[in-house]
Protein backbone atom coordinates (compact mmCIF):
# COMPACT_ATOMS: atom_id res chain seq x y z
CA UNK A 1 0.00 0.00 0.00
CA UNK A 2 1.56 3.26 -1.10
CA UNK A 3 1.09 6.64 0.54
CA UNK A 4 -1.10 7.53 -2.40
CA UNK A 5 -3.41 4.57 -1.67
CA UNK A 6 -3.70 5.69 1.93
CA UNK A 7 -4.69 9.17 0.82
CA UNK A 8 -7.30 7.77 -1.55
CA UNK A 9 -8.91 5.70 1.21
CA UNK A 10 -8.97 8.66 3.59
CA UNK A 11 -10.51 10.95 0.98
CA UNK A 12 -13.71 8.92 1.35
CA UNK A 13 -14.03 10.36 4.84
CA UNK A 14 -13.11 13.86 3.72
CA UNK A 15 -16.53 14.26 2.12
CA UNK A 16 -18.20 13.84 5.51
CA UNK A 17 -15.67 16.13 7.16
CA UNK A 18 -16.48 18.89 4.68
CA UNK A 19 -20.20 18.22 4.96
CA UNK A 20 -20.17 18.39 8.76
CA UNK A 21 -18.06 21.54 8.62
CA UNK A 22 -20.30 23.32 6.13
CA UNK A 23 -23.51 22.39 7.91
CA UNK A 24 -22.05 23.40 11.28
CA UNK A 25 -20.91 26.72 9.83
CA UNK A 26 -24.47 27.25 8.65
CA UNK A 27 -25.92 26.40 12.04
CA UNK A 28 -23.29 28.54 13.79
CA UNK A 29 -24.05 31.52 11.56
CA UNK A 30 -27.76 31.17 12.21
CA UNK A 31 -27.28 30.95 15.99
CA UNK A 32 -24.62 33.67 16.05
CA UNK A 33 -26.68 36.11 14.03
CA UNK A 34 -29.78 35.47 16.08
CA UNK A 35 -27.86 36.10 19.29
CA UNK A 36 -26.19 39.21 17.89
CA UNK A 37 -29.53 40.65 16.84
CA UNK A 38 -31.06 39.75 20.19
CA UNK A 39 -28.21 41.55 21.89
CA UNK A 40 -29.66 44.77 20.46
CA UNK A 41 -32.74 44.25 22.59
CA UNK A 42 -32.38 46.24 25.78
CA UNK A 43 -34.64 43.97 27.79
CA UNK A 44 -33.00 42.79 30.98
CA UNK A 45 -34.24 39.19 30.84
CA UNK A 46 -32.99 38.82 27.27
CA UNK A 47 -29.60 40.21 28.23
CA UNK A 48 -29.32 37.86 31.16
CA UNK A 49 -30.26 34.87 29.01
CA UNK A 50 -27.74 35.88 26.35
CA UNK A 51 -24.99 36.24 28.92
CA UNK A 52 -25.87 32.83 30.33
CA UNK A 53 -25.88 31.28 26.87
CA UNK A 54 -22.49 32.71 25.98
CA UNK A 55 -21.09 31.65 29.33
CA UNK A 56 -22.36 28.09 29.13
CA UNK A 57 -21.56 27.34 25.51
CA UNK A 58 -18.15 28.91 25.57
CA UNK A 59 -17.12 26.92 28.62
CA UNK A 60 -18.54 23.50 27.75
CA UNK A 61 -16.23 21.24 25.73
CA UNK A 62 -17.75 20.23 22.41
CA UNK A 63 -17.26 16.56 23.15
CA UNK A 64 -19.14 16.82 26.44
CA UNK A 65 -21.99 18.64 24.74
CA UNK A 66 -22.04 16.00 22.04
CA UNK A 67 -22.31 13.25 24.62
CA UNK A 68 -25.14 15.07 26.34
CA UNK A 69 -27.03 15.58 23.11
CA UNK A 70 -26.42 12.24 21.45
CA UNK A 71 -26.09 9.83 24.35
CA UNK A 72 -27.78 11.72 27.16
CA UNK A 73 -30.94 13.17 25.66
CA UNK A 74 -32.26 9.79 24.45
CA UNK A 75 -32.63 8.97 28.15
CA UNK A 76 -35.24 11.73 28.26
CA UNK A 77 -36.91 10.38 25.16
CA UNK A 78 -35.34 12.94 22.83
CA UNK A 79 -33.63 11.18 19.97
CA UNK A 80 -31.55 13.25 17.59
CA UNK A 81 -29.89 11.65 14.56
CA UNK A 82 -26.06 11.60 14.57
CA UNK A 83 -25.46 14.14 11.83
CA UNK A 84 -27.93 16.56 13.32
CA UNK A 85 -26.50 16.06 16.84
CA UNK A 86 -23.04 16.95 15.62
CA UNK A 87 -24.23 19.98 13.66
CA UNK A 88 -26.40 21.11 16.56
CA UNK A 89 -23.52 20.94 19.04
CA UNK A 90 -21.02 22.69 16.82
CA UNK A 91 -23.67 25.22 15.85
CA UNK A 92 -24.51 26.01 19.47
CA UNK A 93 -20.88 26.35 20.51
CA UNK A 94 -19.59 28.25 17.50
CA UNK A 95 -22.75 30.36 17.60
CA UNK A 96 -21.68 31.65 21.00
CA UNK A 97 -18.31 32.71 19.59
CA UNK A 98 -19.72 34.05 16.33
CA UNK A 99 -22.23 36.15 18.27
CA UNK A 100 -19.32 37.88 19.98
CA UNK A 101 -17.63 38.47 16.63
CA UNK A 102 -20.83 39.88 15.14
CA UNK A 103 -21.46 42.03 18.18
CA UNK A 104 -17.97 43.49 17.92
CA UNK A 105 -18.41 44.13 14.21
CA UNK A 106 -21.78 45.71 14.85
CA UNK A 107 -20.30 48.06 17.43
CA UNK A 108 -17.71 49.08 14.87
CA UNK A 109 -20.36 50.40 12.49
CA UNK A 110 -20.24 54.19 12.65
CA UNK A 111 -22.85 55.72 14.97
CA UNK A 112 -23.09 58.68 12.57
CA UNK A 113 -24.22 56.46 9.72
CA UNK A 114 -26.93 54.91 11.83
CA UNK A 115 -28.12 58.38 12.84
CA UNK A 116 -28.08 59.36 9.18
CA UNK A 117 -30.27 56.38 8.35
CA UNK A 118 -32.63 57.29 11.20
CA UNK A 119 -32.77 60.87 10.01
CA UNK A 120 -33.60 59.59 6.55
CA UNK A 121 -36.70 57.95 8.00
CA UNK A 122 -35.61 54.31 7.81
CA UNK A 123 -37.25 51.82 10.12
CA UNK A 124 -35.07 49.81 12.50
CA UNK A 125 -35.23 46.70 10.33
CA UNK A 126 -34.21 48.72 7.29
CA UNK A 127 -31.32 50.28 9.15
CA UNK A 128 -30.14 46.85 10.16
CA UNK A 129 -30.54 45.35 6.69
CA UNK A 130 -29.07 48.14 4.59
CA UNK A 131 -26.57 49.87 6.86
CA UNK A 132 -25.49 47.69 9.77
CA UNK A 133 -25.57 44.19 8.32
CA UNK A 134 -23.53 44.79 5.13
CA UNK A 135 -20.82 46.52 7.11
CA UNK A 136 -20.69 44.21 10.09
CA UNK A 137 -20.65 41.15 7.85
CA UNK A 138 -17.59 42.40 6.03
CA UNK A 139 -15.85 43.42 9.22
CA UNK A 140 -16.60 40.05 10.76
CA UNK A 141 -14.97 38.03 7.97
CA UNK A 142 -11.53 37.62 9.60
CA UNK A 143 -13.06 36.53 12.89
CA UNK A 144 -15.50 34.29 11.12
CA UNK A 145 -12.78 32.59 9.11
CA UNK A 146 -11.01 31.89 12.38
CA UNK A 147 -14.10 30.38 13.93
CA UNK A 148 -14.85 28.30 10.85
CA UNK A 149 -11.41 26.72 10.98
CA UNK A 150 -12.02 25.80 14.62
CA UNK A 151 -15.22 24.12 13.50
CA UNK A 152 -13.22 22.14 10.97
CA UNK A 153 -10.87 21.03 13.71
CA UNK A 154 -13.75 19.87 15.87
CA UNK A 155 -15.17 17.59 13.17
CA UNK A 156 -13.24 14.49 14.24
CA UNK A 157 -15.76 14.28 17.09
CA UNK A 158 -18.32 13.36 14.44
CA UNK A 159 -16.78 9.91 14.45
CA UNK A 160 -17.78 9.55 18.08
CA UNK A 161 -21.43 9.60 17.06
CA UNK A 162 -20.84 7.35 14.08
CA UNK A 163 -20.27 9.68 11.15
CA UNK A 164 -17.55 8.12 8.99
CA UNK A 165 -15.31 11.16 8.53
CA UNK A 166 -11.55 11.27 7.97
CA UNK A 167 -10.46 10.18 11.46
CA UNK A 168 -12.69 7.14 11.37
CA UNK A 169 -11.16 5.97 8.09
CA UNK A 170 -7.72 6.69 9.49
CA UNK A 171 -8.24 4.82 12.75
CA UNK A 172 -9.71 1.72 11.16
CA UNK A 173 -6.97 1.71 8.54
CA UNK A 174 -4.29 2.14 11.18
CA UNK A 175 -5.71 -0.73 13.23
CA UNK A 176 -5.47 -3.01 10.24
CA UNK A 177 -2.19 -1.97 8.63
CA UNK A 178 -0.34 -0.77 11.75
CA UNK A 179 1.12 2.07 9.67
CA UNK A 180 0.00 4.80 12.00
CA UNK A 181 2.69 7.32 11.20
CA UNK A 182 2.02 7.44 7.46
CA UNK A 183 -1.73 7.34 7.92
CA UNK A 184 -1.88 10.18 10.41
CA UNK A 185 0.54 12.17 8.28
CA UNK A 186 -1.90 11.70 5.40
CA UNK A 187 -4.71 12.84 7.71
CA UNK A 188 -2.72 15.97 8.49
CA UNK A 189 -2.22 16.67 4.80
CA UNK A 190 -5.93 16.22 4.10
CA UNK A 191 -6.94 18.57 6.90
CA UNK A 192 -4.43 21.08 5.67
CA UNK A 193 -5.88 20.91 2.16
CA UNK A 194 -9.44 21.31 3.39
CA UNK A 195 -8.35 24.18 5.62
CA UNK A 196 -6.57 25.84 2.72
CA UNK A 197 -9.60 25.57 0.46
CA UNK A 198 -11.80 27.12 3.15
CA UNK A 199 -9.44 29.97 3.88
CA UNK A 200 -8.80 30.73 0.23
CA UNK A 201 -12.48 30.77 -0.61
CA UNK A 202 -13.19 33.11 2.28
CA UNK A 203 -10.34 35.37 1.31
CA UNK A 204 -11.71 35.48 -2.22
CA UNK A 205 -15.13 36.30 -0.89
CA UNK A 206 -13.66 39.00 1.30
CA UNK A 207 -11.68 40.51 -1.56
CA UNK A 208 -14.67 40.39 -3.84
CA UNK A 209 -16.75 42.42 -1.41
CA UNK A 210 -13.96 44.50 0.09
CA UNK A 211 -14.76 48.16 0.34
CA UNK A 212 -12.16 50.89 0.54
CA UNK A 213 -12.26 52.70 3.84
CA UNK A 214 -14.25 50.12 5.72
CA UNK A 215 -12.72 49.03 9.01
CA UNK A 216 -11.26 45.53 8.93
CA UNK A 217 -9.87 46.18 5.47
Amino acid at each position, binding site marked *: MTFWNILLILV*KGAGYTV*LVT*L*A*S*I*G*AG*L*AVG*LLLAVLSLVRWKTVRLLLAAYTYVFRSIPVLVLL*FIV*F*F*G*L*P*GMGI*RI*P*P*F*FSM*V*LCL*GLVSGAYLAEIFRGAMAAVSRDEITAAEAMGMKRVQIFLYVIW*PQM*FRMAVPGMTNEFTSILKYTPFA*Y*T*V*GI*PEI*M*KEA*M*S*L*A*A*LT*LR*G*LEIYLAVGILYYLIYKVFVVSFET*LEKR*FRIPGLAGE
Partner: protein
Amino acid sequence: MKKIALLVCLFCLLPLMFSGCSKNEEASVIKVAVCPTSPPNLYEENGKHLGMDLEIFEGFCQARNRRYSITSYDWQGMLGAVIGKQADVAFSAISITDKRKEVMDFSKPYMDNTWNLVSLKKRNLVIKDLSELKKYSIGYPRGMAYSDFIKNKLEPQGVYKLSDVKMYPTYNEVLADLKNGNLDLAFLDGSVASVYRKKMDIQDSYVFTGFDMFGFAFPKGSPLRDDFDRYLAELGPDKLKAIVNKWMN
Protein backbone atom coordinates in the same frame (compact mmCIF):
# COMPACT_ATOMS: atom_id res chain seq x y z
CA MET B 1 -24.78 42.33 -1.16
CA LYS B 2 -27.67 40.17 -2.24
CA LYS B 3 -25.17 37.47 -3.04
CA ILE B 4 -23.78 37.48 0.48
CA ALA B 5 -27.26 37.32 1.91
CA LEU B 6 -28.13 34.43 -0.36
CA LEU B 7 -24.96 32.61 0.59
CA VAL B 8 -25.69 33.03 4.25
CA CYS B 9 -29.23 31.80 3.80
CA LEU B 10 -27.97 28.74 1.99
CA PHE B 11 -25.52 28.02 4.79
CA CYS B 12 -28.25 28.35 7.34
CA LEU B 13 -30.44 25.92 5.46
CA LEU B 14 -27.76 23.27 5.11
CA PRO B 15 -28.28 21.64 8.50
CA LEU B 16 -32.00 21.43 7.87
CA MET B 17 -31.45 19.62 4.61
CA PHE B 18 -29.37 16.96 6.22
CA SER B 19 -31.55 16.51 9.23
CA GLY B 20 -34.19 15.25 6.85
CA CYS B 21 -31.88 12.55 5.60
CA SER B 22 -31.77 10.29 8.63
CA LYS B 23 -34.78 8.05 8.30
CA ASN B 24 -36.24 6.02 11.08
CA GLU B 25 -35.03 2.46 10.91
CA GLU B 26 -37.67 -0.24 10.90
CA ALA B 27 -38.22 -1.82 14.26
CA SER B 28 -37.07 -5.25 13.09
CA VAL B 29 -33.64 -4.01 12.00
CA ILE B 30 -31.07 -4.38 14.76
CA LYS B 31 -28.88 -1.31 15.15
CA VAL B 32 -25.29 -2.36 15.68
CA ALA B 33 -22.49 -0.17 17.01
CA VAL B 34 -18.91 -1.20 16.37
CA CYS B 35 -15.45 0.25 16.66
CA PRO B 36 -13.54 -0.98 13.64
CA THR B 37 -10.12 -0.60 15.23
CA SER B 38 -10.16 -3.98 16.91
CA PRO B 39 -8.85 -6.61 14.51
CA PRO B 40 -9.37 -9.51 14.35
CA ASN B 41 -12.58 -9.09 16.35
CA LEU B 42 -13.77 -6.23 14.25
CA TYR B 43 -12.17 -4.15 11.53
CA GLU B 44 -12.79 -2.68 8.12
CA GLU B 45 -11.19 -3.64 4.86
CA ASN B 46 -12.06 -1.91 1.58
CA GLY B 47 -15.03 -0.34 3.27
CA LYS B 48 -16.43 -3.68 4.49
CA HIS B 49 -16.86 -4.69 8.10
CA LEU B 50 -15.14 -7.97 8.95
CA GLY B 51 -14.17 -9.90 12.04
CA MET B 52 -14.86 -12.66 14.50
CA ASP B 53 -17.50 -10.76 16.46
CA LEU B 54 -19.40 -9.98 13.29
CA GLU B 55 -19.32 -13.61 12.17
CA ILE B 56 -20.82 -14.70 15.47
CA PHE B 57 -23.46 -11.99 15.27
CA GLU B 58 -24.31 -12.80 11.66
CA GLY B 59 -24.91 -16.39 12.76
CA PHE B 60 -27.37 -15.09 15.35
CA CYS B 61 -29.17 -12.93 12.80
CA GLN B 62 -29.45 -15.83 10.38
CA ALA B 63 -30.80 -18.13 13.04
CA ARG B 64 -33.39 -15.57 14.16
CA ASN B 65 -34.09 -14.25 10.66
CA ARG B 66 -33.25 -10.71 11.69
CA ARG B 67 -31.58 -7.93 9.75
CA TYR B 68 -29.06 -5.47 11.10
CA SER B 69 -27.53 -2.14 10.18
CA ILE B 70 -24.02 -1.38 11.30
CA THR B 71 -22.53 1.98 12.33
CA SER B 72 -18.88 2.65 13.09
CA TYR B 73 -18.04 4.78 16.12
CA ASP B 74 -14.85 5.49 17.95
CA TRP B 75 -14.42 3.47 21.14
CA GLN B 76 -16.17 5.77 23.58
CA GLY B 77 -18.83 6.58 21.00
CA MET B 78 -19.60 2.88 20.57
CA LEU B 79 -20.02 2.37 24.31
CA GLY B 80 -22.03 5.60 24.52
CA ALA B 81 -24.32 4.44 21.74
CA VAL B 82 -25.29 1.36 23.75
CA ILE B 83 -25.69 3.24 27.01
CA GLY B 84 -27.79 5.92 25.29
CA LYS B 85 -29.80 3.24 23.43
CA GLN B 86 -28.81 4.69 20.07
CA ALA B 87 -27.69 1.14 19.27
CA ASP B 88 -29.28 -2.20 20.19
CA VAL B 89 -25.96 -3.99 20.53
CA ALA B 90 -22.25 -3.24 20.43
CA PHE B 91 -19.36 -5.57 19.78
CA SER B 92 -15.69 -5.05 18.98
CA ALA B 93 -13.66 -6.98 21.52
CA ILE B 94 -15.37 -5.35 24.48
CA SER B 95 -14.07 -6.60 27.80
CA ILE B 96 -16.67 -7.41 30.44
CA THR B 97 -15.85 -5.25 33.44
CA ASP B 98 -17.75 -4.46 36.64
CA LYS B 99 -17.75 -0.76 35.84
CA ARG B 100 -19.30 -1.31 32.43
CA LYS B 101 -21.85 -3.71 33.90
CA GLU B 102 -23.29 -0.82 35.89
CA VAL B 103 -24.44 0.89 32.71
CA MET B 104 -24.93 -1.91 30.20
CA ASP B 105 -25.81 -5.59 30.05
CA PHE B 106 -23.33 -8.12 28.70
CA SER B 107 -23.90 -11.43 26.98
CA LYS B 108 -22.16 -14.53 28.27
CA PRO B 109 -18.47 -14.28 27.42
CA TYR B 110 -17.67 -15.59 23.95
CA MET B 111 -13.92 -15.34 24.10
CA ASP B 112 -11.23 -15.43 26.73
CA ASN B 113 -8.81 -12.72 25.79
CA THR B 114 -5.31 -13.65 26.70
CA TRP B 115 -2.55 -11.34 27.82
CA ASN B 116 0.59 -12.30 26.00
CA LEU B 117 4.23 -11.54 26.60
CA VAL B 118 5.69 -11.81 23.11
CA SER B 119 9.26 -11.86 21.89
CA LEU B 120 11.12 -12.17 18.60
CA LYS B 121 10.98 -15.67 17.21
CA LYS B 122 14.73 -15.80 16.56
CA ARG B 123 15.41 -15.20 20.27
CA ASN B 124 13.43 -18.36 21.04
CA LEU B 125 12.54 -17.03 24.43
CA VAL B 126 10.18 -19.25 26.40
CA ILE B 127 9.28 -18.54 30.00
CA LYS B 128 8.35 -21.66 31.89
CA ASP B 129 8.17 -20.13 35.32
CA LEU B 130 7.19 -16.59 36.20
CA SER B 131 10.25 -16.28 38.43
CA GLU B 132 12.38 -16.07 35.27
CA LEU B 133 10.56 -12.91 34.29
CA LYS B 134 12.90 -10.67 36.30
CA LYS B 135 15.72 -11.29 33.83
CA TYR B 136 13.91 -9.63 30.95
CA SER B 137 12.71 -6.17 30.07
CA ILE B 138 8.97 -5.72 29.50
CA GLY B 139 7.37 -2.90 27.51
CA TYR B 140 3.91 -1.64 26.53
CA PRO B 141 2.13 1.66 25.81
CA ARG B 142 1.29 3.96 28.68
CA GLY B 143 -2.15 3.75 30.21
CA MET B 144 -2.81 0.05 29.62
CA ALA B 145 -4.50 -2.20 32.15
CA TYR B 146 -1.26 -4.21 32.47
CA SER B 147 0.05 -1.65 34.93
CA ASP B 148 -2.68 -2.51 37.47
CA PHE B 149 -2.08 -6.18 36.88
CA ILE B 150 1.67 -5.90 37.51
CA LYS B 151 1.23 -3.67 40.52
CA ASN B 152 -1.52 -5.69 42.20
CA LYS B 153 -0.60 -9.24 41.19
CA LEU B 154 3.04 -9.54 40.13
CA GLU B 155 4.69 -7.04 42.48
CA PRO B 156 3.34 -8.58 45.74
CA GLN B 157 4.55 -11.99 44.56
CA GLY B 158 7.97 -10.51 43.88
CA VAL B 159 7.70 -11.49 40.23
CA TYR B 160 8.16 -8.09 38.56
CA LYS B 161 8.28 -4.45 39.59
CA LEU B 162 6.20 -1.84 37.79
CA SER B 163 9.12 0.57 37.92
CA ASP B 164 11.11 -1.80 35.71
CA VAL B 165 8.58 -1.62 32.90
CA LYS B 166 9.47 0.38 29.80
CA MET B 167 6.59 2.62 28.78
CA TYR B 168 5.99 3.74 25.19
CA PRO B 169 3.56 6.10 23.46
CA THR B 170 2.00 3.45 21.21
CA TYR B 171 2.49 -0.15 20.12
CA ASN B 172 4.39 1.08 17.07
CA GLU B 173 7.30 2.14 19.26
CA VAL B 174 7.02 -0.95 21.45
CA LEU B 175 7.35 -3.26 18.48
CA ALA B 176 10.09 -1.17 16.88
CA ASP B 177 12.17 -1.46 20.06
CA LEU B 178 11.46 -5.18 20.22
CA LYS B 179 12.75 -5.53 16.66
CA ASN B 180 15.90 -3.51 17.44
CA GLY B 181 16.66 -5.76 20.36
CA ASN B 182 16.30 -3.00 22.94
CA LEU B 183 13.30 -4.76 24.45
CA ASP B 184 12.89 -8.43 25.36
CA LEU B 185 9.17 -8.77 25.88
CA ALA B 186 6.15 -6.81 24.70
CA PHE B 187 2.89 -7.04 26.60
CA LEU B 188 -0.06 -7.38 24.18
CA ASP B 189 -3.50 -8.86 24.40
CA GLY B 190 -4.36 -11.86 22.30
CA SER B 191 -6.22 -9.86 19.63
CA VAL B 192 -3.48 -7.35 19.12
CA ALA B 193 -0.88 -10.09 19.15
CA SER B 194 -2.70 -11.94 16.38
CA VAL B 195 -2.47 -8.85 14.19
CA TYR B 196 1.23 -8.28 14.80
CA ARG B 197 1.98 -11.93 14.31
CA LYS B 198 1.02 -11.45 10.65
CA LYS B 199 3.44 -8.57 10.24
CA MET B 200 6.41 -9.67 12.32
CA ASP B 201 8.18 -12.81 13.38
CA ILE B 202 7.05 -12.89 16.98
CA GLN B 203 5.98 -15.63 19.34
CA ASP B 204 4.31 -15.93 22.71
CA SER B 205 6.82 -16.34 25.52
CA TYR B 206 4.19 -16.44 28.23
CA VAL B 207 0.40 -16.25 28.21
CA PHE B 208 -1.86 -15.13 31.08
CA THR B 209 -5.44 -16.32 30.82
CA GLY B 210 -8.74 -16.23 32.61
CA PHE B 211 -9.30 -12.64 33.59
CA ASP B 212 -10.24 -10.74 30.43
CA MET B 213 -13.49 -11.93 28.89
CA PHE B 214 -15.09 -10.45 25.81
CA GLY B 215 -18.84 -10.05 25.62
CA PHE B 216 -21.50 -8.49 23.44
CA ALA B 217 -22.80 -5.30 25.03
CA PHE B 218 -26.51 -4.44 25.18
CA PRO B 219 -28.49 -1.57 26.67
CA LYS B 220 -29.71 -2.18 30.22
CA GLY B 221 -32.72 -4.50 30.35
CA SER B 222 -32.46 -5.44 26.69
CA PRO B 223 -34.56 -8.50 25.74
CA LEU B 224 -32.20 -8.98 22.82
CA ARG B 225 -29.45 -9.89 25.27
CA ASP B 226 -31.37 -12.90 26.59
CA ASP B 227 -32.14 -14.11 23.09
CA PHE B 228 -28.49 -13.73 22.13
CA ASP B 229 -27.39 -15.73 25.17
CA ARG B 230 -29.84 -18.45 24.16
CA TYR B 231 -28.26 -18.43 20.71
CA LEU B 232 -24.76 -18.80 22.17
CA ALA B 233 -26.01 -21.80 24.13
CA GLU B 234 -27.57 -23.29 21.00
CA LEU B 235 -24.34 -22.77 19.09
CA GLY B 236 -22.40 -24.65 21.75
CA PRO B 237 -18.83 -24.14 22.96
CA ASP B 238 -17.23 -26.20 20.22
CA LYS B 239 -18.60 -24.27 17.30
CA LEU B 240 -17.88 -21.02 19.07
CA LYS B 241 -14.33 -22.10 19.73
CA ALA B 242 -13.92 -22.95 16.06
CA ILE B 243 -14.94 -19.47 15.00
CA VAL B 244 -12.62 -17.86 17.57
CA ASN B 245 -9.67 -19.98 16.53
CA LYS B 246 -10.28 -19.28 12.86
CA TRP B 247 -9.84 -15.56 13.43
CA MET B 248 -7.13 -15.70 16.07
CA ASN B 249 -4.65 -17.66 13.97
